[in-house]
């Protein structure tokens, strides 16, 4: 369970990134966060695993405050939260397998991981994770030999190998074409259903949000302006979130056609 309590973030230049956000996300939910660029989607997501510090309020992950955590405790909380990025963030010069295994380093001593001595269960886990996203045959390829969609699936495998209980995905399909977009979103959805992993995805395309999420959170200027099930997220409500009618480039279908 993720509890976001009265969270605000003010940048050094005075602009408000997040404004009094209150959210509770239950285990196993598939949440899509939508909003215009600059609305605070990415800031909110990165506050949850504290890649960004917040100015006010508190965020609890399964009852533990990540806001107050330091050093080892912070790393232990982060170990349970996997993250997927728009630009994949793989080490391009390393093999796919090593990239996936890098998700395991939080479980072992520094010396052991620096020497690359992962136990065989970890290697099995890495292969199983690659198998789950249908890319196991690429295990020994260098990451930069893969296409964008394949790289994003490797990034998902890395999160699976990490045995994360929560997945945060920051615009995971923004640099992919429509077909691979569907594959990656299907993978995320399947993992969410099969492994009961809480998933929070920032999305630009609102039809994708409607298709995959169980709950939609709308942000505008750092404030939550919509929070409800997909059935309530009608075009009219989206028009409110965006402060104007939905334009065609916010619909994947339209862009594809």
């Amino acid at each position, binding site marked *: 369970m993720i509890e976001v309590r009265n969270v605000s973030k003010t940048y050094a230049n005075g602009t408000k990134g997040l404004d009094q956000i209150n959210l509770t996300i239950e285990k196993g939910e598939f949440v899509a966060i939508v909003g215009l660029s600059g609305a605070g989607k990415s800031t909110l997501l990165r506050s949850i695993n504290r890649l960004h510090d917040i100015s006010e309020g508190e965020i609890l992950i399964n009852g533990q405050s990540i806001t107050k955590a330091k050093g080892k405790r912070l790393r232990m909380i982060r170990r349970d939260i996997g993250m997927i990025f728009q630009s994949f*963030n793989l080490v391009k010069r390393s093999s796919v397998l090593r990239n996936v295994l890098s*998700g395991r380093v939080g479980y072992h001593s520094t010396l052991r*991981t620096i020497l690359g001595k992962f136990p065989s269960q970890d290697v099995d886990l890495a292969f199983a994770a690659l198998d789950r996203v249908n890319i196991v045959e690429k295990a020994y390829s260098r990451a930069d030999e893969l296409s964008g969609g394949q790289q994003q699936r490797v990034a998902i495998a890395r999160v699976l190998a990490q045995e994360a209980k929560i997945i945060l995905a920051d615009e995971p399909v923004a640099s992919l074409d429509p077909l691979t977009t569907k594959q990656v979103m299907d993978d995320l959805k399947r993992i969410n259903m099969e492994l009961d992993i809480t998933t929070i995805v920032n999305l630009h395309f609102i039809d994708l949000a409607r298709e995959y999420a169980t709950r939609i959170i709308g942000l505008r200027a750092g404030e939550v302006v919509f929070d409800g099930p997909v059935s309530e997220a009608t075009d009219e409500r989206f028009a409110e979130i965006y402060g104007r009618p939905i334009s065609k480039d916010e619909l994947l279908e339209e862009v594809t056609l």
Partner: protein
Amino acid sequence: MKPVNLSTNHSLKRPNPPSKMKHYLTVVIILLLLWGSAVQSDSTLRELIQGLPNMLDLLKEMFPPKWSYLDNIWDAMLETIRMAIIGTTIGAILAIPVALLCASNITKKSIIFYPVRFILNLIRTIPDLLLAAIFVAIFGLGPLPGIFALSVFSLGLIAKLAYEALEAIDSGPIEAMTASGANSLQIIAYAVIPQIQAHFMSFTLYTFEINVRAAAILGLVGAGGIGHYYEVTLGFLEYDKTCMIIIFTLAVVLLIDYASTKLREKLL
């Protein structure tokens, strides 16, 4: 639309062109500096021309080179290369932590990376021959002070090149490793080293090329290697032997440069 009338009858206001005075002054100052340096160091063009026959005499004495002298200098040349190998390796190993401490995207505290960079720049201002002379004074004659001098010189060069490359790496993998709960050493091992190791090898090879050249003259101050033979043969006016040393050094340096350049092309 009405065509734009360029030939207006009212006088166009043009800004005054910037003064060229600065350029003229620069030229004058450079000429003054050149003239002043020549006068102060007693060097004249006339002396250079008068000295030409002497130079030709020297060249005549150098040829033909004494090929048989190769047997005497073979060991010294090997020692020179060994000094360069060991010096470069020690320098490269020491450069790793220094480069990491200098890089602002890895060592996030300016209170650490600014002082370390300052010390690094300080090291780089000391010429290698001076370093060798200092180490000879401390450790005595032989290749050991030469190796130390090359180590310090390599440390300065490799750390400088490596930290600049470090600051240009992709921060994405660092962010991903941070998010997965890795500690700072694990982040370096998994997100930084793989991105930098090919560059680092390339810098080390490049430094090795420079060190072979540098090691060839360290013997002049008694720090081992082939440089010692320059001093001896020049002292005894045995120019044919000196010529042999020069040719041999040139051949070895060219060979190593060629091999190293090819290797570096393959790396990157």
